[in-house]
């Protein structure tokens, strides 16, 4: 029967009905009965099936208008959104029918030839991927980092609700005291009766606040169990002190300095250290004391948690539903939009995919694209990602997962929305060189921009062996994901030559390598290496008669390195250095430039031993072992 064709229209209309599920079902049943009756009637009159469907549908008129009429009957308040949709919606519904028809059972009444479109649809083009689909990424859910009431899942939809009323009702729903900073809001010109609209469907409550406030320049923070609602600027000034225990991270090989770099690079900030204003960080043993805003505190907590995971790809601060949205973007759909308003096209896609898709209307307005901008696109059997690309790119728009939904926004906005992902690449990265090569490949083979290359944009950091942290846009992170999958696949087919460690003859070959480092470190290592790595195989260090291989290590001084360092660090490091060199720290004046003597260790040994040396050097670099035997990181040795 024709019921399935009509479902789309019904689901579209049901979505727009602001009624209870029982009422909605009852209206749907009644309209379905009418549609079937009309369709059968037309078929009996000899109207071709396709035309009968279209005619029966057309007689229903605009789905949005009909929904609005029903809703108005039951409610006095009409939703503003409904009013925006024009007659175009019904053409959309009809277009949808053309597409879904291919999968329907044949017409029981009219046995016409199978339509051409049906044949095309029968073999949808799946976008070919040469690369196996990697495991889905994991994420640290920001809901686990907010107060319990804000993590409570809610379902709520409202429009034209005065801001104050919305805030009060929100407070009641999540049972949390709320303080609305009316004075601050009034200063930025937002009245308490500012009409707001929002919707959320069984997601953590804080996401609703983020969605509603994004367009108003508002923000929220929790202080002493009270939810404060204020301007974004005001929230950015409200610092609190929090402590983080990092013992386990230090045990994994992270140093305090590396963690500090990571935290400052991979979160939104601002940070005093790099921006000249903002949050501060002090490590006291295994505890980090941090002064930051509520939001950045949550980001930092997410980042530390992500570093603790062993996931191949872990978003450090990302609602888990975003992963579902990302994978849904790879699902195959078909569209047939002809001169329909963008908002209607989005509404149709919502209805077809079952996803929540929002329009950042304030941002769209800023870039001169109204919500009713007409769009046209005919694509069959393509991923949702491709459909969005062709639909939105021309308008300077794109779609990103944001606040638990897919958000259609400007490309500029998407480029400013950066996310941090921690990658465990220990399966493909075995040395510092490997890590650097991988970073180079990522920066060269993805669109960027990257700060290392372009001066602005995304950041990469390899804080310890086998871990890569990247902060980039949604688009580039997707490219990184594909690149890593391709690289892993290639490594499976053809392991790198250096990795053929199962070949003993290869690993026993002698090789001379040159290791550049600070002179102090080189001096220490020259003495310690023959004791720490393959003892008994080094010339001048009691070579055992049973071992044929003889290794050699010598040191050559090279040009010193100069570094300009911030004031307090200079004084500390310079003082330490002078004391080590047996000099009195006589000159109390802080030098601007630090001179660091450099040297090269020339080592001739087997490949297997070089590998061990590399490992040792990494551990020294990461602070697990210090050549001086003292505490503290070894940053800057290499």
């Amino acid at each position, binding site marked *: 029967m024709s019921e399935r064709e009509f479902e789309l229209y019904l689901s579209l209309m049901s979505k727009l009905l602001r009624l209870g599920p029982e009422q909605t079902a*009852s209206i749907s*049943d009644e309209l379905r*009965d009418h549609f*079937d009756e*009309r369709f059968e009637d037309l078929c009996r009159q000899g109207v071709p099936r396709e035309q009968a469907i279209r005619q029966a549908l057309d007689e229903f*008129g605009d789905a949005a208008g009909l929904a609005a*009429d029903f809703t108005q009957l039951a409610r006095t308040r009409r939703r503003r959104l409904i009013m925006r949709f024009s007659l175009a919606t019904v053409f959309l519904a009809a277009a949808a029918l053309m597409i879904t028809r291919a999968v329907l059972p044949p017409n029981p009444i009219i046995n016409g030839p199978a339509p051409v479109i049906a044949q095309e649809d029968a073999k949808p083009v799946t976008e070919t991927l040469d690369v196996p689909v990697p495991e889905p990424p994991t994420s640290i859910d920001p809901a686990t980092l907010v107060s319990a009431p804000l993590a409570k899942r809610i379902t709520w939809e409202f429009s034209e609700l005065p801001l104050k009323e919305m805030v009060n009702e929100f407070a009641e729903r999540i049972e949390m005291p709320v303080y609305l900073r009316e004075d601050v809001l009034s200063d930025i010109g937002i009245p308490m009766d500012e009409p707001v609209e929002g919707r959320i469907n069984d997601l953590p409550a804080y996401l609703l606040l983020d969605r509603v406030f994004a367009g108003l320049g508002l923000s929220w923070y929790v202080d002493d169990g009270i939810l404060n609602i204020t301007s974004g600027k005001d929230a950015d000034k409200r610092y609190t002190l929090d402590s983080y225990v990092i013992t386990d991270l230090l045990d994994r090989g992270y140093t305090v300095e590396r963690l500090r770099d990571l935290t400052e690079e991979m979160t939104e900030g601002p940070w005093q250290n790099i921006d000249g204003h903002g949050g501060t960080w002090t490590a006291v043993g295994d505890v980090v004391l941090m002064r930051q805003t509520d939001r950045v505190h949550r980001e930092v907590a997410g980042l530390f948690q992500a570093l603790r995971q062993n996931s191949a790809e872990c978003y450090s601060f990302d609602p888990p539903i975003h992963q579902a949205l990302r994978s849904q973007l790879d699902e195959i759909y078909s569209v047939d939009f002809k001169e329909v308003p963008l908002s209607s096209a989005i509404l149709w896609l919502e209805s077809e995919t079952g996803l929540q898709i929002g329009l950042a209307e304030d941002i769209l307005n800023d870039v001169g694209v109204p919500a009713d901008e007409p769009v046209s696109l005919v694509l069959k059997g393509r991923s949702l990602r491709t459909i969005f690309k062709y639909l939105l790119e021309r308008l300077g728009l794109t779609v990103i997962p944001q606040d638990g939904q897919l958000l259609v926004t400007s490309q500029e906005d998407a480029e400013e929305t950066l996310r941090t992902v921690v990658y465990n690449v220990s399966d493909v990265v075995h040395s510092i060189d490997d890590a650097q090569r991988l970073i180079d490949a990522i920066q060269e083979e993805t669109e960027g921009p990257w700060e290392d290359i372009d001066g602005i944009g995304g950041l990469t950091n390899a804080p310890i062996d086998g871990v890569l942290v990247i902060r980039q846009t949604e688009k580039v992170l997707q490219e990184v994901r594909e690149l890593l999958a391709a690289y892993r696949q290639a490594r499976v087919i053809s392991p790198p030559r250096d990795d053929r460690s199962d070949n003993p003859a290869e690993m026993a070959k002698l090789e001379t390598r040159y290791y550049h480092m600070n002179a102090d470190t080189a001096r220490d290592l020259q003495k310690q290496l023959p004791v720490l790595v393959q003892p008994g195989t080094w010339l001048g260090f009691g070579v055992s008669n049973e071992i044929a291989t003889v290794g050699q290590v010598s040191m050559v001084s090279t040009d010193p390195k100069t570094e300009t360092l911030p004031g307090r660090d200079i004084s500390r490091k310079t003082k330490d250095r002078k004391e080590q060199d047996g000099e009195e720290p006589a000159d109390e004046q802080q030098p601007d430039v630090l001179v660091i003597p450099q040297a090269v260790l020339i080592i001739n040994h087997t490949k297997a031993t070089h590998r061990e040396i590399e490992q040792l050097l990494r551990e020294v670099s990461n602070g697990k072992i210090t050549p001086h035997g003292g505490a503290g990181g070894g940053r800057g040795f290499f």
Partner: protein
Amino acid sequence: MSKKESFSPDLLRGSLDLMVLSVLADDPQYGYLIQQRLREASGGRMSVTAGTLYPILHRLEQDKLVKCRWESTTGRRRKWYELTAAGRRQLKQRAEQWYVYADCVRKLLEPAVTIIPQTT
């Protein structure tokens, strides 16, 4: 006016409720049948779309002028409408009023129909 021309929506606006009530005067009907009856009664000139008809039916139901019941005898759920006592009273009252009104309008408009030359 050509024979096939539909009635202007302005004409229908004030009388559609009444016509729906009158279609229900004899026996219970469901939406599609009501639509067909209206089309037939007007010789095809009056085409009330589903999008117009159902909100009217629901409003009449809300105003307790019609009542409804669900039946599933045809294999799918079908909603039948019938007049309530209040609906029947309303129909009678408004139909009488409408006759008087139509009479007035006819008298007023008669000269115009004869004066204005007919166009094809």
